[in-house]
């Protein structure tokens, strides 16, 4: 028996026992909770099948590959069951009724995701295999979403009702998260290089950035409003350049400030971590300071830099949600609308793509870090 698999089985079985969906005749009415077995016409066989996979998964001799395949199948069956349950419960013409995933669904999703992760960890896939698996997982998700099988789940109904705004907010979210990262790299890289060359400045610069980092995110977004509002009102021309107290601009500034510390400190530690012999050799062979920086220090510090980009990207994708509060746009808009109207489906419409985006970005960046290490044998 393998301990992680036992945990997965317990989580999954509890999930099977808990309600799969919550059914409400309309948005405000109190809902009914239904387990997988009860919610589907062919509920019992499906539930027994999932239970069998979870229990058999405890066997030691299951290969990692088998675990990954079982997990992928489990997730597909689970999500399709959700879609089918929704269609059966609401019927084609009922526009008011809503079916949302409930605790059992989330727990089983967690269980099969853990099974997947367990399989991947045991398999120790090569870089190539990792990229392929990521592509496979994305293809699976895309296929499920595009199949139309989920159309009657209420999150998807919210999405269908808001196709245009969703695309717009998705764009805003990407601009905020990646734009603030880009700005942080533009400013943070030179700053990191500068304090590497001038050690006297390291302490003060890092201290200031540390303080910025400790301001709670809501407070920082809040502070931006009066400060930038004042600048927009007083400096002629500032308003025309997009400076304003609310909207996208203050959100971008706040995210940028949060990103500076990880970028600067990782640049510094990346450069400082270059072997002294390589630096000595570069100087001894007659490289100028600039040549040494661009040909030796930066390439060798690259893994640390990419690690910083990863941290910042994942952090910013999450933090961007808060931009929704100050009218900055992004998926946070749905989250806060949903919270105001106590419409959980709307909250999910904002939260799920945010989590997915953060997860995928984190994995992609992690693979890039590994790749940059592998080419020089530091893996």
């Amino acid at each position, binding site marked *: 028996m393998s301990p992680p698999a036992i945990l997965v089985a317990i989580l999954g079985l509890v999930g099977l026992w808990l309600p799969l969906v919550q059914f409400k005749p309309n948005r405000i009415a109190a809902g009914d909770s239904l387990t997988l077995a009860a919610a589907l016409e062919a509920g019992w066989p499906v539930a027994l099948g999932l239970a069998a996979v979870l229990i058999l998964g405890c066997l030691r001799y299951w290969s990692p590959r088998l675990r990954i395949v079982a997990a992928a199948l489990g997730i597909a069956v689970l999500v399709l069951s959700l879609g089918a349950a929704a269609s059966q419960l609401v019927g084609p013409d009922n526009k008011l009724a809503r079916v949302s995933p409930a605790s059992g669904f989330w727990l089983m999703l967690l269980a099969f995701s853990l099974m997947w992760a367990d399989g991947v960890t045991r398999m120790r896939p090569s870089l190539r295999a990792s990229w392929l698996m990521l592509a496979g997982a994305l293809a699976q998700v895309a296929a499920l979403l595009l199949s139309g099988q989920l159309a009657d789940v209420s999150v998807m109904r919210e999405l269908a009702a808001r196709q245009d705004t969703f695309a717009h907010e998705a764009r805003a979210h990407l601009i905020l998260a990646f734009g603030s990262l880009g700005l942080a790299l533009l400013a943070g890289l030179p700053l990191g290089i500068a304090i590497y060359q001038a050690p006297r400045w390291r302490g003060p610069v890092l201290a200031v950035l540390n303080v910025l980092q400790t301001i709670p995110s809501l407070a920082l977004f809040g502070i931006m409003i009066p400060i930038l509002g004042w600048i927009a009102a007083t400096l002629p021309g500032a308003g025309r350049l997009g400076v304003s107290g609310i909207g996208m601009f203050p959100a971008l500034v706040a995210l940028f400030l949060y990103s500076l510390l990880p970028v600067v400190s990782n640049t510094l530690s990346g450069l400082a971590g270059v072997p002294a012999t390589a630096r000595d050799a570069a100087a*001894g*062979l*007659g490289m100028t300071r600039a*040549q040494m920086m661009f040909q030796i220090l930066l390439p060798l510090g690259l893994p640390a830099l990419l690690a910083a980009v990863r941290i910042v990207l994942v952090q910013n994708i999450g933090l961007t949600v808060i931009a929704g509060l100050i009218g900055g746009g992004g998926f946070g808009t749905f989250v806060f609308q949903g919270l105001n109207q106590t419409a959980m489906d709307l909250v999910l419409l904002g939260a799920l793509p945010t989590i997915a985006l953060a997860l995928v970005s984190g994995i992609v960046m992690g693979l890039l870090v590994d790749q940059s290490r592998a080419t020089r*044998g530091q893996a």
Partner: protein
Amino acid sequence: MIELRNLTRHYGEVTAVNDVSLTVQTGQIAVLVGTSGSGKTTLLRLINRLVQPSSGQVLIDGADTASLPVHHLRRRIGYAIQGDGLFPHRTVARNIATVPRLLGWPKSRIDARIDELLALFQLEPAAFRDRMPHQLSGGQAQRVGVARALAAKPDLLLMDEPFGALDSVIRAKAQSDLRDIQRQLGTTIILVTHDIQEAVQLGDRIAVMDRGRVLQYDSPAQILTQPATPFVRDLIGPTERAFRLLSLTGIGPITMPGEAHGTPIARDATLRDALAECLWSGRDALPVQGGGIVTLDALRANAAQDRQ
């Protein structure tokens, strides 16, 4: 010609190099020996200004190196760093190409030079050109480090314990190769080692260092026969001294006409080889390839002469 004038370098309380003056003639090999921490590396790095002197001057062909931009100076001086100092993210070929690229050589000339150097250091070009440094053994990496230092045909080569990672067989080969390369190219070499045998074999001149000072700067024979201080005598190892001295001289001068039995000895063998062969085979005289003999009596007489 390299001239060091009253070079001193302090690190806080420590005086790593203390008032060192010496001259290395063009085309000579000067070897710095001394115990660990005696200031050898620091002295070497003062020459290419990786370390700035607290006081004193370095002159190359009469010109003060302080008057040149450092990176121009360093591109003219080959530097094989202690360890190997290869750039871990660059292939062997790209490592060797470093200085030629800085100097803007055309690509075809650089490629030819890389293959020439790899072959010279017994590294099959096709097999090694595209390897990364982590795919080399310690000894191979050191040889690539030396090849990189030689790439732009510098007039002066600084080498910091270049053969430290080599086993004794390859080491002896590398030493004689270095000698050959140096004779062919007429390069001036300043080499650091803490192996006195290596110093005796390679050096035209040996500088013995202790606690930042050069105690004696002389030919190997002088150092062996007339150590200037007790420290130098201890460093040579008094019991080894006779053999080291014998290994300095070829058998040419004591070869005399005559006949002897047994396997002949090579014409370019050293006195040490001849003595060892006499003792081992129990012979009083050895035939020399191409004619003549070497006798135990002649060896003994020669040693007595050295002792005076």
